[in-house]
């Protein structure tokens, strides 16, 4: 096939899956990645073991990176962004931040999400008390091999609280969506903490638990039955400190009783925000955003991954909170939609 290449924006799980799918059927493609290396958030944020496979991120996503690196059909442009995108399906014209440009048949936006910045919920102590951290930081403590330690003094914590829905389901800060995967990720981290530090007790403060589907048994119940993780129905009102311990205040709603409990560490289960660049992406690619700021999808019944612009597709957490597995599936599905455009252009040429 001698069609124009497909443009893939973003080198995370969705983008890597799209690129591999296209190359495996002989379609040329170009991955544009703003960071200096591929892998996306799981690699760049230093995730530990992934949910639900339990594989280390550097092995699982690293394998996906290796699969596209060196493939003759895949051009990789790291440290690069798209500056201009014009034309119509089958014949789009792209300009990159490096200055060069070329023409492509279709584009797949795999631009991902941005982690919620806990500083926007000051009442929960992030940025004020060193022992208040995010799930991403705990992932890094585990993946770096350092282990889970209190940032204030480097000691092993004896008691850890995980607060769910930090930056999710919160109308006050304009984030009304459920970030979908934090419950399972938190249960997974709680088990990892219990495994590394058996003397450390882990408490999860929740409004409701959304370890959906098969994750119910694998994370919610396994964490309780095998790892004795405690779940307490309370949305925490504030996090303070006595100078050593971090003090969590709230109401245990099942007991109707105020609680003021000291912890060695508090972990924010941070949600998934729309990519901070989405406004820019929306104007460059002329695609609509949905009301929360994620890239809007057309209905999925006609073809997977359609955006509001013909010939431009979208996959993964660019469309809303998404798991890695589903991002990969969407990347492959969008690749198939893009391939149809590339091929119709080939058919027209013949």
């Amino acid at each position, binding site marked *: 096939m001698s069609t124009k290449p497909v443009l893939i924006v973003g080198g995370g799980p969705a983008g890597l899956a799209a690129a591999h799918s296209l190359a495996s059927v002989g379609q040329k493609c170009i991955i544009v990645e703003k960071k200096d290396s591929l892998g996306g958030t799981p690699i760049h944020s230093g995730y530990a073991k992934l949910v639900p496979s339990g594989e280390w991120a550097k092995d699982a996503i690293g394998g996906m990176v290796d699969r596209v690196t060196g493939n003759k059909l895949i051009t990789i442009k790291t440290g690069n962004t798209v500056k201009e995108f014009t034309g119509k399906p089958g014949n789009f014209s792209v300009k990159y931040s490096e200055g060069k440009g070329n023409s492509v048949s279709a584009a797949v936006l795999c631009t991902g999400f941005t982690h919620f910045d806990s500083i926007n919920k000051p009442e929960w102590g992030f940025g004020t008390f060193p022992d208040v951290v995010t799930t991403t930081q705990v992932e890094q403590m585990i993946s770096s091999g350092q282990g889970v330690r209190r940032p204030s003094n480097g000691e092993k914590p004896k008691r850890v609280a995980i607060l769910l829905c930090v930056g999710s389901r919160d109308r006050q800060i304009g984030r009304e969506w459920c970030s979908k995967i934090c419950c399972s990720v938190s249960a997974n981290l709680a088990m990892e903490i219990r495994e590394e530090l058996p003397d450390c007790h882990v408490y999860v403060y929740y409004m409701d638990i959304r370890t959906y589907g098969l994750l119910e048994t694998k994370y919610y119940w396994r964490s*309780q*039955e095998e790892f004795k993780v405690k779940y307490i129905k309370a949305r925490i009102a504030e996090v303070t400190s006595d100078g050593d311990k971090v003090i969590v205040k709230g109401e245990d709603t099942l*007991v*109707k009783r105020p609680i003021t*409990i000291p912890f060695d560490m508090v972990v924010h289960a941070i949600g998934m925000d729309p990519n901070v660049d989405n406004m820019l992406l929306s104007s460059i690619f002329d695609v609509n955003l949905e009301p929360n700021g994620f890239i809007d999808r057309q209905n999925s019944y006609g073809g997977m991954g359609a955006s509001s612009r013909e010939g431009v597709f979208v996959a993964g957490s660019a469309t809303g909170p998404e798991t890695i597995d589903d991002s990969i599936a969407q990347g492959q599905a969008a690749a198939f939609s893009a391939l149809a455009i590339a091929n119709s252009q080939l058919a027209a040429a013949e």
Partner: protein
Amino acid sequence: MAIHEKHLIRPENIKTHDNLVIDGVDVSGHWSTFIETRVVTDYNEQLQDEIAALPGGEYIHRCWQCGSCTNSCTVNAINPDFNPRYWIYLIRVGMESELLRDKEIIWQCVSCNKCTYACPRDVVPEGVMKATAHWLEMKGHTAPSNSTIFDEEFTRQVVQTGKIEDGRILMNFLKNSKQPLFQDWLIQMVKQMLWHLPIKYLMGMGLATLFQPKTKSWGKARAAIEEHIAEEKAAERAALGLDAAE
């Protein structure tokens, strides 16, 4: 403002001031009744493990707080303060001080097991109630209940002789539970028995009460049972952090 949840107020949290002046204003009287908020300030991390170590409590960690047990409960229908769902939660998260407030109600479970059949998670709440009552006694929070005293005498006789002798069980139970031997209902029952039972059975009962026959060659079985009970008791006491000896 009206108090909406009066049932949450415990008498010890109500502070009344006969003479109280705030900012120069005399507020003595019935409105100077203050209710202190009770705040839970810590969790007892061992509590769930301790209950789970006692017979019946093994599956407490499965509970998801649906309330099927409380809804199906015979005792709860009579006393709304009898709430197995609530106690299971307190135990699971380690709110020991809250649990102890209900120590005089928990043992009232009648073991009808309706909760056991209603429970979607196979927690066996009836077993948890039993384990919890047991825990309260072992920790010294409650005095041994009459049913415990009865069980002890019953078990003692079985272990000693391989048999039970109703008359002795009754007498020793009444003695150990500090109840008078001459109970109206008991006198009535004995009168009826003397009147209606064939003389052969009466003689048999009388002889058994006097001589306490043993099961043949009971010695070995007794030693094995005693050893097993001692092991189980020691394990339970160790799980509760108590000294090995009672």
